């Protein structure tokens, strides 16, 4: 997965689409858009954060029962049938990408219609850990994950690194190695050695108002 930060305008449509598709319980944002500022001099930018699907995942290392595991296609998966709710993975994850069902999650009839499957992780249960699982049931159908599919700005690209092709919601397909190389792609907290599978292209030549401008605009509108 590649996030082109130059294109992200912080609209949070991705979060809404994800929540809708997975019936994500309230207070959880499997894809969360942060507003970050690297230092005082630098301006702020939006930073969407999914699960990083690390190649060296601390959560998988720490799970005592193998409830979270790495699939051969690279997805870090979550088995709600096995999770004991010790929350060690939450402590382990440096990206705050894991959530816990503290109480019984509110259910919708639509959610309850489906039988539980590890590929969509709902109906949700009390006392287990939840996370972004990169929509395996969409991938099975050859479709983009909900967030990438929804992004109007085309900021979210998804693809298989071995095919070297990533596609965004606008249908634009790029050569992964090329955009990562020319765009100086980076990964979050590289220094922790988690080997994330999510790349970011830096927010250069923004195609949208910066967060400050957006806040000002919102304020004047109000």
């Amino acid at each position: 997965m590649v996030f082109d930060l130059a294109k992200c305008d912080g609209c949070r449509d991705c979060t809404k689409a994800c929540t809708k598709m997975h019936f994500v319980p309230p207070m959880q944002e499997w894809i969360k858009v942060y507003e970050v500022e690297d230092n005082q001099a630098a301006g702020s930018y939006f930073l969407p954060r999914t699960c990083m699907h690390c190649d060296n995942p601390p959560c998988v290392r720490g799970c005592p029962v193998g409830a979270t595991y790495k699939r051969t296609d690279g997805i870090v998966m979550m088995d709600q049938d096995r999770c004991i709710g010790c929350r060690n993975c939450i402590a382990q994850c440096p990206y705050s990408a894991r959530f816990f069902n503290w109480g019984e999650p509110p259910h919708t009839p639509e959610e309850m219609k489906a039988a539980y499957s590890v590929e969509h992780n709902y109906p949700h249960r009390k006392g287990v850990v939840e996370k972004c699982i990169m929509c395996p049931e969409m991938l099975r159908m050859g479709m983009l994950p909900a967030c990438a599919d929804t992004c109007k700005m085309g900021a979210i690209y998804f693809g298989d690194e071995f095919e070297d092709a990533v596609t965004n919601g606008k249908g634009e397909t790029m050569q992964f190695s090329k955009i990562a190389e020319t765009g100086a792609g980076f990964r979050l907290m590289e220094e922790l050695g988690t080997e994330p599978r999510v790349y970011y292209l830096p927010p250069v030549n923004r195609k949208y108002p910066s967060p400050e401008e957006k806040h000002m605009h919102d304020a004047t509108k109000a």
Partner: protein
Amino acid sequence: MNERETKLLKTIDMSGLGFRAWVAFLVSVLLWGVFAYSRQLRFGLIETGMRDQISWGLYISNFVFFIGISHAGTLISAILRVTDAGWRTPITRMAEGITVVALCIGGSMVLVDLGRPDRALNLFRYGRIQSPIVWDVLSVGTYLTGCILYFYLPLIPDLGIVAARPDIGGFRRGLYRALSLGWIGSPKQWRLLEKAISIMAVAIIPLAISVHTVVSWIFAMTLRPGWDSSIFGPYFVVGAIYSGAAAVVLAMCLLRRIFHLEDYLKPVHFRNLGLLLLSFSMLYLYFNVNEYLTLGYKVRGPEKVLLDRLFYGDYAPYFWVVAFVGVLLPMVLMMLVLGPKRYRDFTVPGLGVASFMAIIGAWAKRYLIVVPTLSSPFLPIQGVPKEWSHYAPSWVEWSITAAAFAAFLLLYTLLAKTFPVVSIWETRETGEPAELAPARRSHTVRNELGAGGPDHRAAGLRITVERAGCTGARRCEGREGPATDHHLDGLAGAEAGGRAARGRRQDRSSRRRNPALLSRYQAAVLPLGCGKRQQAQGIADPRDCRLGAVEGCQRPAAGLPGGQLRTEDLARPAGVRRAGHRR
């Protein structure tokens, strides 16, 4: 049963109003906690103050705290046992009791923290050895098993004593008899027991150190600022021993007052343990300085956020109160009551107060290790309401915490009610008779040997004496003086039997030429011959035989046939060892 034993066994008969009220109070707190937990089971951990950002809280702090307290006992009593510190004997039982109980409570705190306790068995069905949680299950489980054994083994002779009490009811007599595993105090049993205790004492030390190291690894194996530290293992172990030693001192203060154990828990015990506690408080201070200075000097990004909050941010009041109340004040107080002669009178209450402060500080410190780190993640906490980004324990958590402490005190009270809080056989004075079972042939000898018991070599020696026809007279032992002919003869004969029985272990002839050992040997061997002469002189009770009381005992020996005798048997004769006990 003599007066001393009756007094030590008094705790078993606790049934007064005060005792009942105390138990009722503890049980009601516990029941309130059970009610709180039932709510948590029904509605989930939403009943707690924990949320996604701060996903561990009071329960995990309690877990670390109780596992720390558990180092009290076993480690201290095992180290003292291994180093053969004679003054430990009145303390070990109560210290080991703390360990067993604290481990049970600590372990259950993890279960309380689980989101799905119904699936706890998955830890065994699907356990993965890569996970620090599984390390914890294994090490705490092993440690608990070891501690129960280590608590139980030295208890067996006392159980035998209790079972032999005439005034004990049928059910309890049966219970004690069953638990004492047929203990009659025979030399073979003593030998086995002493060997088992020695093995456990040695084995339990690495176990205790590993268990708290592994607890620290739950934190240190993460990438989080403040936890990602290579000294967390020893830092936790030292903190654990510090809090554990404080728990022992506090328990000693309380039990001494409640059960009037002033004869056993003397100022010297407090002084010795106080010095241990003081040195561990210094060691702990050193680790604290080391931990925070190495982080604070460099002020790296995520750690800077955490340290700012701890040193002068929202956690600063707690942090500094814990630093002063938990470490610095107790340290100064202990220096005062242990140092200048002027304040020696305050040693016991002073240490009690210091250890109480240390325990409170230890608990709060665990909280400060768990919570601030979780609330200072790498990515900023954004867009969540305050109650999701700030941890405040809910009433359910406080109730369960209170119940955990109540359960700790309740179990400890019940232990004190069931078993003698001071080990009877280990604190036995030299020469004090031990009466266990109804009379059997030469049982006096056996029990006398048994009373001297811990040293199976000495016991072995006496057996050989017994075989050679001597009835022992322990009263005489430990006196310096010349040997009589006759018992040397007896020993020489006995020695032949012992040699046949014991095989190759005895051939350490280098010891025979050791003059120091020979003099010790003389001291120990001396009294053993008296029996025959007593018999000859018609003295009925061998215990009445004292050096000087029987004429023949004072006749100087012609010479010491060292070559015929196994000094090895006497390397640690009971008399010499006991001198340490009286210290």
